[in-house]
């Protein structure tokens, strides 16, 4: 049996394209553009969740977190996109 070790897995949840993000729009329009950063074309906000997982490999940890996100609906697939990645 192979040993398990601790892996840190990051989940980033953002509103899908087409779902309005009033917080991102406000940061963009009323802060960033107003202060002259015209090269910033858009801002989207989201939610960040860090999982500490015991697993045999990084791949296994990511797979487990993906399963949790789907089964327990950590994100809402109707409105959200997620990115699941190993913490660098």
């Amino acid at each position, binding site marked *: 049996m192979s040993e398990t070790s601790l892996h840190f897995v990051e989940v980033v949840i953002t509103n899908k394209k*087409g*779902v309005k993000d*009033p917080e991102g729009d406000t940061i963009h329009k009323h802060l960033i553009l107003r202060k002259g950063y015209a090269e910033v074309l858009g801002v989207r906000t989201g939610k960040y969740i860090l999982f500490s997982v015991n697993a045999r490999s990084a791949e296994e940890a990511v797979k487990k977190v993906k399963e949790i996100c789907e089964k327990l*609906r*950590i994100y809402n697939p*109707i*409105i959200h996109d997620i990115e699941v990645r190993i913490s660098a």
Partner: protein
Amino acid sequence: MYKDFSLNDWDALIIPGGFSYGDWLRAGAIAARTQAIEKLKDAKDMHIPILGICNGFQILVEGELLPGALLPNENSKFVCRWIKTYVEKPRGPWLSLVEEKQEIDMPVAHAEGRYYVDEETYRSSLLKSPIVRYAPGHNPNGSIYDIAGVGSEDGLILGLMPHPERSSEDILAPRGFRANGKILFESLAHSLKKGW
């Protein structure tokens, strides 16, 4: 005790408003994964009428018993005021006494009530189902298509953000509004006796 909750004891189920699990993650998301709420899928199969009000509506969409999702209000604020709505395609036990386009005035009190549904689901399924819409100028949260509430196609399951139970006594309605939300409960009483 919520753990002893048995579907056989009930003719109809109402999930009221309030807050569950501090609204963490998303309003209703954690409650939707509890033992009692997971039983609602069986209730649906048994054709038991289910009504979700406010947080109850959020729980029903998070539990995938109704389509769509409820997002934070467009202005990011908690909104608490009376609004006017009207009903389209009333049917099923909760709306059996309601007429097409009938206006119902009710208060809303929520921070996450901005309904969202993708256009395809809206056209293919919602347009065949009962819909409660905010009257023009009364959309308090930026909901798409002015949607305040939606039902299953047969109307057995209904969810809405406004509070019909707080619109059942004339003394509670401010000037310019009618306390006529009681009709949902009168419809249910009627339907349980006479069918729908």
